[in-house]
């Protein structure tokens, strides 16, 4: 696991630092609805970027395009791994809005799924499954079934499953939207420490201004449908953020700034 990461520092060419790049990407659904774009976006290796915008602005569509879950109508989606090779799919972990767990099996088997699909023998995958569950603090609940877990715990299992293949890019589609605030804050903190320790590139879709400011290094504000880039805001705060950042004046300033940037996106929308 650690090998390619060490090599990448040397082999970085002009564009090697880019992990995900979208060029003029659009998505028009079969029904004729233009959902996205054209959108240009570059995300560096190890960066934490949030896509922020009103509901139905195509943020999730953008994420699904990057994951290869649907095809773009025009434009190119590029994924590059650290060793400079262009790859798709396998180096990506995806966390859905819902926990999306298989209800018929335990947390352990849910986390093992990506490895099982890659035909890794159980004896080999066991250690990685255990490690992923430990990362999200659920090693004691490996044998619990999804229905026996709380909403926050289910989301953690979902996160562990995304981490188990040790992907370089983590795509998260409003993962904490359905959770209560206290659980969400805790998961925010845990996600930040995972990001710092595991050096993943994270693209995080949210419609919460506060969440995006708290988590990201960079926020991409999108317009309403079809989703385009409307503003880009860099959050210059230390990577090690905690409750004191959440209550700081700088945090409040950023939230105001991002809210203002978001306001035009809502301008045309009735009743929001």
């Amino acid at each position, binding site marked *: 696991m650690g090998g390619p990461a060490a090599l990448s520092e040397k082999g970085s060419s002009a564009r090697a630092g880019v992990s995900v790049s979208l060029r003029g990407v659009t998505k028009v659904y079969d029904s004729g609805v233009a959902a996205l774009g054209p959108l240009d976006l570059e995300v560096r290796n190890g960066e934490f970027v949030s896509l922020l915008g009103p509901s139905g602005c195509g943020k999730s569509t953008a994420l*699904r395009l990057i*994951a*290869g*879950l649907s095809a773009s109508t025009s434009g190119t989606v590029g994924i590059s791994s650290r060793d400079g090779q262009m790859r798709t*799919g*396998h180096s*990506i972990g*995806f966390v*859905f*809005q*819902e926990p*999306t767990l*298989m*209800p*018929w*099996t335990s947390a352990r088997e849910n986390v093992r*799924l*990506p490895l*099982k*699909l*890659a035909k890794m023998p159980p004896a080999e995958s066991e250690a990685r499954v255990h490690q992923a569950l430990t990362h999200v603090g659920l090693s004691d*609940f490996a044998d*619990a*079934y*999804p*229905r*026996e*877990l*709380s909403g926050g*715990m289910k989301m953690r299992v979902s996160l562990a499953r995304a981490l188990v*293949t040790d992907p370089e890019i983590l795509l998260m589609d409003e993962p904490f939207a359905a959770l209560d605030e206290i659980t969400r804050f805790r998961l925010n903190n845990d996600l930040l420490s995972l990001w710092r320790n595991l050096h993943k590139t994270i693209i995080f879709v949210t419609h919460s201004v506060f969440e995006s400011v708290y988590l990201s290094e960079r926020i991409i504000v999108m317009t309403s449908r079809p989703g385009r880039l409307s503003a880009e805001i860099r959050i210059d705060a230390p990577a090690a953020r905690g409750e004191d950042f959440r209550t700081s004046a700088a945090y409040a300033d950023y939230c105001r700034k991002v809210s203002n940037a978001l306001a035009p996106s809502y301008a045309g929308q009735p009743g929001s």
Partner: protein
Amino acid sequence: MSSLQNPPLSSDAAGAETRGLRLVRILLPVVVLAVGIVLWELVVRLNDIPPYVLPGPGAVFTTLIHDWPELSRSLLTTLLTTLEGFVAASIGGVALALLFNQSKWLEYSLFPYAVILQVTPVIAIAPLLLIYLPQQTAVVVCAWIVGFFPVLSNTTLGLNSVDRNLNGLFQLYGASRMQKLRYLKLPSALPFILGGLRIAGGLSLIGAVVAEIAAGSAGAGSGLAYRIAESGYRLNIPRMFAALLLLSVAGIVIYGLLALASHLILRRWHESALGKEI
């Protein structure tokens, strides 16, 4: 049901209440049965009805004991036919549903005929089958015809009810068709399949009985339905009732076993198998 969350404070009281309710649900039908039997016996005795018109429950029970060697052999024959029909229906229904799921063309071409087979009354098909097939085969085919459709339609429904996001997840990790089928579609469809099997169990018994009745006049049969037909010709009404009783009990046991199997398989995860107390 080991929930990790704290149980509600009143769980003891609620538990006692559910237990009481369960007891009532078992007791009430038993009471109705007892009252029914007593009334039946009373009506027969007070009106002095001869046993060849309406035997009392006592007479039926005596016949059941007395004719047990013969009746039990017939019961075994019928149960065996039912089992064969049920197994064929389960395998056929699930296999056909899997085929339909893999190929839309096949589904569009064949599904209407499965429906036609289902809506045509089996009692009308049975005499034809008895002409073209050896009797034992014809009886099993009848049991299969009635049993397989619920399995087919339930399995089809189940295979099409896969969670959209889980489907996306499998796609993301490059799952093959076989992997998707084995790890995603079949487990998702399992509650539906089991529901179909529960219906098919009872229907297989009906199919077997219908075919036996149809074959009865041909003479070679020895199942319970044949006993009923035969006893009818001989005006041995108590034995008709005894055979009927055995058929009902067989149906109840089949349903109970399948419901139990379904509960045991699903109890850890599916809503239908979870208690109402949570």
